C-alpha cells in the first residue's frame, strides 16, 4: 500500500482524501480538521480581501500552502467568463496552476453547467492550467472533458452539500472503466461509508467539505473519512468475492459430529 499513490498531473500524493476549507466555525477548527483528515490537498475559494476589517484572519496563516497543496476553485461562478477570471487571479496570487473548475448551472440544485465547463476546460488547458473538473455523472460528458485536456474527472455523487451519497453507482463505474485519468468523487457525500463506497467503485479519491465541516463532531468525522478512504481503497485493491444468491458455509461441511 505504501507505493499506492494518488497521482494528479505527475504530482504524487499519499492521501486520497481531498477536503474543502469552507463552512467551518473558524479557521482553527478548519485547520485541525484538515490535519486530522490527513488530506494533502485542500480546496480554497477566491474572494475579495476585506478592506474594512483588516484584522480578519487569513487562510494562509492557518494552512501553510507550502505544506498543503491549495486547489483554488471557481465556486460561485455560473459562466465560463467568471470562472476563467477567477482562476487567472488564483494563478496570480502565487503561481497556482492546479485548479478545480466548477461552473454551476443553477442556484437551487448547484448542478454543473456542462457546456460552459467544457469550454472553460479547453481554454484553461491551453493556458497551461492543470484542470480538475467538477462535472455531472454522465460518462459521455466525462469523455469529452478528458478529450478537452482535463487532468482529473470529478463527478458529483449528489448535489453539493446534500449529503445524499452516491446516487448513480452504475455511471460512476462506467466512467471508471472508460478513463485512466484520476477519478475523484466531488460533492454530495454525507458520511464516511459513502467515501468507502466511492473507493470500492474504483475511484482514485474523494473530495469532501460539508460532511466533515457540518458534522456534529467535525474532528471525529475528519478521522472517520480518512479511515473510510483507506479502507475503501484497500478493499478495492483486494478483489472482492463474487455475489451469490444462496448461502455458502464458512466452516467445513465434513467432520460434523
Amino acid at each position: 500500500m505504501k507505493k499506492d499513490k494518488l497521482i494528479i498531473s505527475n504530482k504524487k500524493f499519499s492521501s486520497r482524501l481531498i477536503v474543502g476549507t469552507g463552512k467551518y466555525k473558524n479557521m482553527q477548527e478548519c485547520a485541525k480538521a484538515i490535519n486530522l483528515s490527513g488530506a494533502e490537498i485542500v480546496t480554497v475559494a477566491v474572494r475579495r480581501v476585506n478592506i474594512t476589517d483588516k484584522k480578519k484572519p487569513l487562510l494562509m496563516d492557518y494552512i501553510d500552502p507550502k505544506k498543503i497543496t491549495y486547489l483554488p476553485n471557481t465556486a460561485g461562478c455560473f459562466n465560463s467568463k467568471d470562472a476563467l477570471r477567477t482562476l487567472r487571479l488564483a494563478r496570480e496570487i502565487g503561481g497556482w496552476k492546479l485548479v478545480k473548475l466548477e461552473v454551476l448551472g443553477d442556484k437551487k440544485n448547484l448542478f454543473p453547467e456542462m457546456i460552459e465547463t467544457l469550454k472553460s476546460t479547453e481554454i484553461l488547458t491551453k493556458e497551461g492550467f492543470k484542470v480538475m473538473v467538477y462535472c455531472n455523472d454522465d460518462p459521455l460528458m466525462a469523455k469529452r472533458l478528458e478529450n478537452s485536456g482535463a487532468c482529473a474527472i470529478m463527478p458529483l455523487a449528489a448535489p453539493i452539500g446534500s449529503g445524499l451519497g452516491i446516487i448513480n453507482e452504475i455511471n460512476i463505474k462506467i466512467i471508471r472503466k472508460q478513463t485512466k485519468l484520476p477519478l475523484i468523487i466531488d460533492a454530495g457525500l454525507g458520511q464516511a461509508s459513502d467515501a468507502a463506497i466511492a473507493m470500492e467503485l474504483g475511484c482514485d479519491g474523494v473530495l469532501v467539505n460539508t460532511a466533515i465541516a457540518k458534522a456534529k463532531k467535525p474532528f471525529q468525522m475528519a478521522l472517520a473519512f480518512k479511515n473510510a478512504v483507506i479502507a475503501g481503497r484497500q478493499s478495492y485493491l483486494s478483489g472482492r468475492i463474487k455475489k451469490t444468491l444462496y448461502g455458502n458455509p464458512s466452516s467445513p461441511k465434513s467432520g460434523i459430529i
Partner: protein
Amino acid sequence: MKKKIKIKLNGKLKTINNKSTLFNIVQKNKIPLAKVAIELNQEIVDKKKIKNINLKNNDKIEIVHFIGGG
C-alpha cells in the same frame, strides 16, 4: 489643495489623491502583497509593477485572496 479622484476598491467608492499609485493603495490598506492578486479595470496587474501604475478617475480595483471554500 490637492486634486482628488474617485476610484472603486473592491466595490467600495473611495476618494484618493490625484497621482496616487496602485502601490499607495496597497500600502494604505495594509494589503499583504504576497497573498493577493490584483485586477485593475478587469486586467490582471503584475504585482512587481504597481509602483509605476498611476490611478485615474473611475478606475476599478479588485484585490482578492484565498478563503475557505469547497
